[in-house]
């Protein structure tokens, strides 16, 4: 019998009775063949690998993280709560020491869901990783966490949630936004004025192969992680960099994903996208599970894998080396944010957000306190084609007393103004989550 080097928990929730719509990539069938492959391989007979049932996330878990307009129920379904709950379960079993590592193989995904939520964008409603990270911070008090997003699409949602947070390092490796949804994720996107360099984007050119991805891991991600020294590493494990993925243009393979995972050595992985459900997911997921468990994965290969056909062009390798230099330079010496506008003590930015799945347009004014002692109280004034003017206030995790008092004042004023249909108040200082 095979014995895993790491005790590993797998939370497998394929939501076989849920789809965005019947022929949408995010449909019932998505993890069926992954399950077939994992079962046929006898994954759960490996000593040390255990399967766990997901938790169901509570409304409080979502309200701790997001401003949902008009409320949590309207913008989520049970499947979202179970998917987020799967991520929470992964965190719990790792944090409680029940396992060394955990992989939440859950759907629907979450990394395009931003701080403020009016509906579904990029197949995501609520951000599974962010809800998990906030759960971890609240229940276990973990301070420094790194999220490495290896989905092919820029994780603009996770980037938005942690834009101003100097304690959460968010690194996204993705296909260059000039060639793929959502269009963002360029090197100069480095985080808010008080969290510069804590958002890192590594845009890779189309047709990047194993070689290019692993180069980026070795030469950008690992050095930055070594410098940041997180207590916990989370992998947003999208599988759409695969050479067979129908909606992207990369040349990554199952072996590549497994090697990446071994190098990155995450404590927790959470499934994101990946829509080559027959040709990629069964092998990529198998590779990731084995790599996390510390079991030999050298024979995990797609049946149609052809090294020659996927070999990386020399020009691409050269380009990626330049990207690496630019990213490392930006991390070490982040330039001042030229777009930051200051009103009093607040840094303010205006945002237009499009929810492609639901066809909703949102306009935001986001203000964050330029605080020297904490990430700073944050508020967002938001209106959209789905909701009238609404407001969200967050006293962040680790807030100082003056930001807490400021947050309470802003909340009071917002209520008194009677301007807003909905007000969301996230008070991490007193662990209070209110919607009025």
């Amino acid at each position, binding site marked *: *019998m*095979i014995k895993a080097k790491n005790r590993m928990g797998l939370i*497998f*929730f*394929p*939501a*076989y*009775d*849920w789809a965005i719509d*019947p*022929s949408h990539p995010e*449909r*019932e*069938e998505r993890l*069926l*063949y992954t*399950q*077939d*492959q994992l*079962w*046929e*391989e*006898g994954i759960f*007979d490996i000593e040390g690998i255990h*399967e*766990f*049932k*997901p938790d*169901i996330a509570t409304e409080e878990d979502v309200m701790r993280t997001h401003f949902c307009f008009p409320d949590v129920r309207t913008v989520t379904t*049970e*499947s979202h709560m*179970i998917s987020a709950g799967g991520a929470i379960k992964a965190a719990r079993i790792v944090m409680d020491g029940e396992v060394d590592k955990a992989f939440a193989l859950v759907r629907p995904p979450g990394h395009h869901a931003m701080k403020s939520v009016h509906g579904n964008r990029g197949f995501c409603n609520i951000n599974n990783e962010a809800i998990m990270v906030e759960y971890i911070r609240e229940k276990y008090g973990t301070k420094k966490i790194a999220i490495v997003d290896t989905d092919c699409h820029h994780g603009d949602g996770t980037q938005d949630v942690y834009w101003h947070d100097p304690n959460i390092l968010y690194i996204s490796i993705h296909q260059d936004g000039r060639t793929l949804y959502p269009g963002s994720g360029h090197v100069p996107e480095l985080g808010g004025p008080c969290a510069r360099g804590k958002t890192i984007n590594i845009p890779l050119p189309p047709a990047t192969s194993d070689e290019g991805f692993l180069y980026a891991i070795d030469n950008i991600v690992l050095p930055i992680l070594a410098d940041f020294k997180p207590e916990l590493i989370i992998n947003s494990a999208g599988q759409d960099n695969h050479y067979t993925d*129908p909606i992207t243009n990369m040349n990554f393979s199952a072996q590549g994903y497994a090697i990446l995972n071994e190098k990155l050595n995450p404590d927790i992985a959470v499934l994101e996208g990946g829509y080559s459900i*027959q040709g990629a997911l*069964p*092998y990529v997921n*198998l590779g990731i599970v*084995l790599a996390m468990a510390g*079991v*030999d994965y*050298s*024979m*995990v*290969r*797609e*049946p*149609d894998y052809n090294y020659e056909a996927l070999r990386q062009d020399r020009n691409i390798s050269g380009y990626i080396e330049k990207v690496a230099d630019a990213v490392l330079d930006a991390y070490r010496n982040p330039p001042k944010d030229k777009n930051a506008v200051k009103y009093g003590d607040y840094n303010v930015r205006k945002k237009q957000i499009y929810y492609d799945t639901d066809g909703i347009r949102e306009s935001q004014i986001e203000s964050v306190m330029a605080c020297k002692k904490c990430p700073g109280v944050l508020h967002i004034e938001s209106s959209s084609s789905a909701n009238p003017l609404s407001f969200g206030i967050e006293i962040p995790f680790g807030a100082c007393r003056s930001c807490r008092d400021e947050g309470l004042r802003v909340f009071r004023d917002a209520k008194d103004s009677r301007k807003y249909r909905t007000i969301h108040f996230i008070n991490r200082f007193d662990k209070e989550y209110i919607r009025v």
Partner: protein
Amino acid sequence: MYLGLDVGGTHTDAVLIDNNKIVASFKAPTDHKNLLTSINRALAEVTKSVDRSAIKRINLSTTLSTNAIVENKTEKVGVIISGGPGIDPESFRLGDFFYVIPGSIDHRGTLIKDLESAGVKAALEECAGKNVRVYSLVTKFSTRNPGEEEYLAEKVGDQADFVSLGHRLSGQLNFPRRVGTAYFNSAVWRLYNQFCDAINESLKELGIDTQVNVLKADGGTMPLSLSRELPVETILSGPAASIMGIISLCDITDDSIILDIGGTTTDIAIFASGAPLVERQGISFASVPTLVRSLLARSIGIGGDSRISVQSGKVTVGPMREGPSMAEGGPVITLVDALNYNGTISYGNTAASKKGVDEAAKKAGMKADVLVKASIEFAVGFITDQVNAMLAEINDKPVYTIHEMLENRAIVPEKVYLMGGPAQGFARYLHASFNKEVIIPREYAVANAIGAALAKPTFQVELFADTSKGQLIIPNLNIREKVAGDYTVEQAEDEARSYLVDYCKRMGIQSSVKDIEIIESSSFKMVQGYFSTGRDIRVKCQIKPGVEGGIA
């Protein structure tokens, strides 16, 4: 009249049941050197004063295959397998003639790469040279496409007296388990068949001419003739016999805990709404996981003969057993002695128990009644903890749909059913520990043989249809058919049912339609690009475990 015979590790039990009444019963120690002697004696004794021609059926539970594997008395097997991409198949090596052949089939059952014929040839030549006469042939995803296993069987040809093909043993996905199952099946085949011949011979001599079935680990039976091809199904049927026994003896309708306390171990089983639970994939045996269906039972190292030890004031019981209790002339004090000491039971030489406990207490520097109390508390506490852990595991079983996630009903046992030799002694302690009603059935001493006698047949099929390929397959029935593009899950359910019924008729499995149930059924629309290409339909259908009648 139904005859039930359970050849257990310690005892061989037999009962004869007529009209829900026990007409005769017999119990004797099992002769491990010669199981057949034990069986013949039990058969002769239990039927000596009845009309043997009135015996309608004999159900037999035997440890023959189990012992053969445990004692390493199996035949050498040529294991020829092919894995394709995935975990290195070398990890599943069994026996001295194990060959991994390059080639692959994917999860849809599509042949990706032919088996490398040179490798097959070399393997077979080596086996022929070493006079290997039985084979196990298994490829990954053979339940989706058995073609490569059949190709191997063709190549083996006359070189084999018997071959086990992976897909014929179970329709479930799990390549390593399929390898293990096929290995054991071939390894015990010859021995088991010799045993079947001998049984038939014995019955002839006794003048018994009736249907003979064997008990399986899932609490069901199969005809002896059929078991000749599937001997692996007869392993570890002992706990199932006891569980089916308690169903025969008690009218269980609620969630319940079943405890069978023996000499060395206690077997725990859990019932949901009166029905025994089944292992998710199959039983593990000799540390090899298999696809042999089995009732969910856990064996823990505490029984009446478990040794009581004291180490620096701490009292523990089991898991060691060093002979019987002192009440039966054993060398160390056991739980039975402790229960004898405080008068809970009165078994064997109670004076010897008393003397032994007093001496042990003196040696440990504690009061005898403290030692007795602590040891019983330890044993009962251990059993309780193990039951609760098992329940937690069952209730935390993963599910894969939102519906099941939201509707999931937790199992909350209301009663404890207790059997086995020392059952009486534990009743009041377990009642206190679980805070539930404890029931001990009257005939618990031969419950296992009763369970064997009354157990009904079981069988399971899995149907897999892919309408884009226009194919349907039921691996273990060796059925492959074409299906139309508009084939539905309802048609698949009907078909699974009717194939199961046909098969039972052909094999002489007596079952009624009401025992057949669809246990899983799903239909996924397959999409390629933006177009639907067909449906992926899966149906699991079984004859569920059950007993015929009961004991009034």
